[in-house]
């Protein structure tokens, strides 16, 4: 596929599936029809000029495929009616507004709480982002056949249980929007996770998550958490170029060359965060974005406002009292007040021993102990982290640190 066709594919896939879903009321049929239209487009457009309105062309061709399919598969009057209705749609392609709304309707269906959480992410990647079943299977570390089956089941559940293609009304919106934002966030973290799948797919997931967050922000700009999520993704993604060193080695925030950060993304993220905070309804995504913005504003770690970051983590802990948030707060406190203060918090995090198996907990402890000069304890914490089989990039980092502590 040429780069130009690939770009149209990325931009228009979700839009086309969403429009066809509205027209046919059947997600599986819509997806098949759009797939056929894209296959035809690759043949027609490769080596030739693109039509003046590629999106409109794709939607018309997909619509014709859908009508053919409906006619071929059934003689039932209801189906005939559906085909006739589709054919009757002789209007020019929809203006941008309602089309964008179609994608919003589709994402609310794909992220419906009645679907299994993993299926929500997979369906979103397939229907809105146009990732292939094979690519999604790689993200979830399952076989392509398993993923294909999961996607089919998800679409069947949407159809059989009548999960609506609709933006929930005001009563349900706050709760349901949270579920959609969660899916977008998880798509991003999956791509951002060190050692996540093959590099190409990983980077693509971050791009797709940002694309989805932008779409949501365009359509729900009065929702501060939507703006907060987009801000968070941009501010985090801006650090991507500096995050990996030669040979895929993980470079920690403290050691990153900040000139390699994407400053356009940083300033866009900060601007969105300001816009969100002016709405005066704080939430976990805005708080995380604010933390990322503190890092963005600093020339290096010594110039970073760690006290502010510690306070933001404390606020975040009131929304999400998870061990991960407490551990991050401990790290920030260690930077602001010294490693001993951080270690005291960290030791309180895992009183129940529930996250003993979480390698980052041991890695954090190890780092604080090292800075306190307690090298023997540090070395044993590094070993504990390594014993939990961390991702490759982190493993290499931990091994380096362990050898520095004389372990």
């Amino acid at each position: 596929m040429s780069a130009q066709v690939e770009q149209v594919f990325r931009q228009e896939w979700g839009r086309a599936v969403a429009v066809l879903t509205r027209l046919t009321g059947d997600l599986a049929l819509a997806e098949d029809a759009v797939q056929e239209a894209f296959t035809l487009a690759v043949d027609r457009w490769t080596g030739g000029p693109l039509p003046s309105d590629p999106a409109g062309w794709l939607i018309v061709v997909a619509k014709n495929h859908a009508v053919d399919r409906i006619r071929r598969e059934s003689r039932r009057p209801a189906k005939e009616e559906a085909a006739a209705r589709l054919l009757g749609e002789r209007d020019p392609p929809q203006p941008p507004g309602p089309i964008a709304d179609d994608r919003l309707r589709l994402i609310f269906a794909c992220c419906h709480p009645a679907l299994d959480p993993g299926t929500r992410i997979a369906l979103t990647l397939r229907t809105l982002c146009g990732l292939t079943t094979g690519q999604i299977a790689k993200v979830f570390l399952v076989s392509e056949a398993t993923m294909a089956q999961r996607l089919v089941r998800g679409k069947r559940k949407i159809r059989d249980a009548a999960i609506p293609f609709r933006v929930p009304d005001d009563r349900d919106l706050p709760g349901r929007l949270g579920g959609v934002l969660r899916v977008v966030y998880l798509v991003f973290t999956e791509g951002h996770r060190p050692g996540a799948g093959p590099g190409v797919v990983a980077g693509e997931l971050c791009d797709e998550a940002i694309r989805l967050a932008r779409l949501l922000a365009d359509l729900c700009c009065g929702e501060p958490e939507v703006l907060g999520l987009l801000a968070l993704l941009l501010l985090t993604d801006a650090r991507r170029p500096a995050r990996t060193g030669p040979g895929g080695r993980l470079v920690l925030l403290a050691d990153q060359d900040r000139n390699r950060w994407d400053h356009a993304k940083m300033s866009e993220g900060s601007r969105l965060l300001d816009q969100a905070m002016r709405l005066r309804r704080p939430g976990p995504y805005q708080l995380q974005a604010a933390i990322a913005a503190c890092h963005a504003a600093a020339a290096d770690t010594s110039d970073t406002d760690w006290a502010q970051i510690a306070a933001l983590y404390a606020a975040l802990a009131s929304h999400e009292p998870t061990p991960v948030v407490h551990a991050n707060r401990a790290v920030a406190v260690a930077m602001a007040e010294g490693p001993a203060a951080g270690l005291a918090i960290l030791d309180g995090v895992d009183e129940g021993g529930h996250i003993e198996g979480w390698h980052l907990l041991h890695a954090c402890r190890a780092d604080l102990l090292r800075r306190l000069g307690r090298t023997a304890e540090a070395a044993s914490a590094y070993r504990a982290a390594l014993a939990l089989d961390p991702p490759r990039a982190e493993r290499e980092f931990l091994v380096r640190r362990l050898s520095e502590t004389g372990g």
Partner: protein
Amino acid sequence: MRYLCLLVGEADMDGPVPGTPEFMQMLSDYQSATQAMATAGVLVDSGPLQPASAATTIRVRGGEPLVTDGPFAELKELIGGYYVLDCADLDEALRWTATIPAARFGCIEIRPLMVMPGSG
């Protein structure tokens, strides 16, 4: 779309005890939830079930009916009643079932009825 909503009591959750004010409150909550569904035109049918000890199971094998005492499967959870609702979609069904007290004291399974070809 029609949904069969099964009211399920969960073994580790105790509902109000008969004779207490909480029990009377629950009955009145059932009544008002059911009334609201009827008024909105989504209620097809509903009712409580006798306990599983009153159940009889029949199988026909080789043309012969085999009748046994008890439910078809021994479950920890007990189905105590049902609603059949006619809703536009799952979101509407979820909104109504959330008003049924069984959702607080146990859970409710929402199962779409299959639309048979030719039935509309």
